[in-house]
């Protein structure tokens, strides 16, 4: 029988997770002897479900992983899917903003719950402070928190709004602001490249000799999962139309865009194209899909320590390359 594995996604079903859905639909997991359940989630962190054992593996962002680790949750990075950050800040072109230096005195809308770091890091890099930092007396930027719907605040309540290249930008377009009316600040273009969707699990799972009495070790299950998932991603990125069809089967109302872009198929097609860009970057281009780029990782850690979000460098156990090596048969350099 196949080994039952629960995989916690970072959000509702959408093309952001195309690789997982494709791997499942195409039988890549089955081929590895795994019976994978993909779990959706709302506003909470996937760390919680994995750390408590409600799920076995998860996908999340690097900041989430490292802050959790700092608070004693024994979670371990096993593979890096997106090699590049898709986080942006969006303004109206008519606002005249062209450079992050001009953000001082503006209002910026960000998502709370640990999703605000890229914006904070960008501002910090340009010497600005935000009202999110309660220790600062006169913050140079007024930050506003809001749930993920940009129309709640944009454009009348904030000057800049956080948006993922693959999701919110298309939502904003749907509200009646075509791309040529928008000024998009890609944080990765400005030296902030906090890594996003990665795979992780707990130390306990990795250490287990006999994962759920399957006869396989935790390492082995992790390696098989990563291998099949990367296969799924490679297939999805190469066959985006088909991947979108597979995703659409899995989403109820979660896949639609907004306003003029409200068709689910249209929105997911856009999203697939955008996440493909994030996947096909960095180490992936060097033939090492799924590998965490050490240089970027070290830069991320430094940035988070500068921000005061990490008090000390994470222990070596925060990341393991052995799973990726086992999955790909390559050696991580």
């Amino acid at each position, binding site marked *: 029988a196949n080994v039952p594995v629960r995989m916690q996604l970072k959000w*509702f079903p959408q093309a952001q997770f195309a690789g997982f859905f494709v791997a499942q639909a195409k039988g890549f997991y089955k081929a590895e002897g795994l019976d994978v359940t993909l*779990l*959706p*989630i*709302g*506003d*909470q962190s996937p760390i*919680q*479900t994995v750390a*408590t*054992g*409600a799920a076995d593996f998860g996908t999340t962002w690097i900041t989430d992983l490292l802050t959790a680790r700092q608070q004693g949750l024994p979670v371990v990075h096993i593979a890096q899917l997106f090699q590049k950050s898709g986080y942006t800040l969006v303004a*109206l*072109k*008519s606002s005249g903003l062209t450079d992050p230096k001009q953000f001082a005195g503006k209002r910026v809308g960000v998502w709370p719950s640990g999703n605000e770091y890229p914006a904070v890091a960008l501002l910090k890099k340009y010497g600005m402070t935000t009202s999110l930092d309660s220790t600062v007396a006169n913050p140079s930027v007024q930050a506003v928190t809001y*749930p*993920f*719907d*940009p*129309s709640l605040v944009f*454009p*009348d309540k904030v000057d800049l709004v956080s948006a993922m290249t693959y999701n919110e930008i298309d*939502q904003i377009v*749907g*509200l*009646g*602001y*075509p791309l040529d*009316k928008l000024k998009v600040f890609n944080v990765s273009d400005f030296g902030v490249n906090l890594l996003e969707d990665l795979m992780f699990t707990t130390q306990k799972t990795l250490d287990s000799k006999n994962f759920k009495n399957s006869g396989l070790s935790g390492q082995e299950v992790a390696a098989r999962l990563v291998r099949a998932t990367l296969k799924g991603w490679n297939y999805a990125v190469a066959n985006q139309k088909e991947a979108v069809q597979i995703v659409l089967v899995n989403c*109820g*109302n*979660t896949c*639609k*865009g*907004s*306003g*003029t872009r*409200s068709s689910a198929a249209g929105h997911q097609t856009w999203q697939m194209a955008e996440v493909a860009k994030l996947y096909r970057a960095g180490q992936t281009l060097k033939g090492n899909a799924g590998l965490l780029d050490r240089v970027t990782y070290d830069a991320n850690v430094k940035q988070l320590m500068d921000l005061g979000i990490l008090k000390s460098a994470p222990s070596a156990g925060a990341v393991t390359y052995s799973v990726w090596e086992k999955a790909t048969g390559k050696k991580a350099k």
Partner: protein
Amino acid sequence: MLVVAAAALLLYWPLMLWANVGAAQRSLNSGAELGCATALACATQLRNPVLPAPAQLGRSLQAMSVPPLAPTSVPYNTLVTARETVVGLLIASVLGVLLAVALVGSRAFERLTLPWLIASQTVPVIALAPMLAVVLGQYGVQGWLPKALIAAYIAFFPVAVGVAAGLRSPDPMQEDLLTTYRASGWQTFWTLRLPASLPFLFTSLKVAATAALIGSIVAEISTISFSGLGKMLAENSRASDTLALWVIMLYGAGLGIALVAVLGLIERLVTPWRAGQSR
């Protein structure tokens, strides 16, 4: 009732126009392409109206209601939420009544626990629900049951407070009467306190019903869910689909009213002596 409804409708139209014209104007000023020329023209066809125009709402309502039992349609999801709410309310009623009995019966119990019962209600569920769901998930409690439990968590308190007041409401002379019968605490409870508390019970159950509904929706939003009004709210909120939010809200309100109406019906059946007595 119809007159009031008509008056409300008449008031709604100008209110809607007033609210939306401002939003439309701001959008137009910021260069949005709304597909309409003037703010007034846009007011009834905004994709993100502050208040939806009746025609817009009607269209969305129809679109989201058929086929009624499809997993993506609102009626089906309303039923899912209804189940969580009703089960939650049942749990809350049992728990609330038991707590009320304990509170009225024992001063010691009241002193030890009442402050913490109150405290439990001041803990924001929306912060607690995810943790609770995760903990329950560990033990395999998943799906609609955790939502019902969270609904019960919010709803038990109004029941407990109201029933406790009701249990204390009998006329002192009636209590004396039962004392002269050497009625056991249990008998006094069944023959006197419980019937005397019924009007209070139903008043609080009506409040608890809406609380439970809020609880199950919050739970759906903040824990893993595959169906229910809360899940629909969350996903449509992310998609900026304001009209869908309004349709879901209408169904939610309908569910709330239906619950309260059913309770009213049960109340009339259970307290027949009140029929015709009120003036």
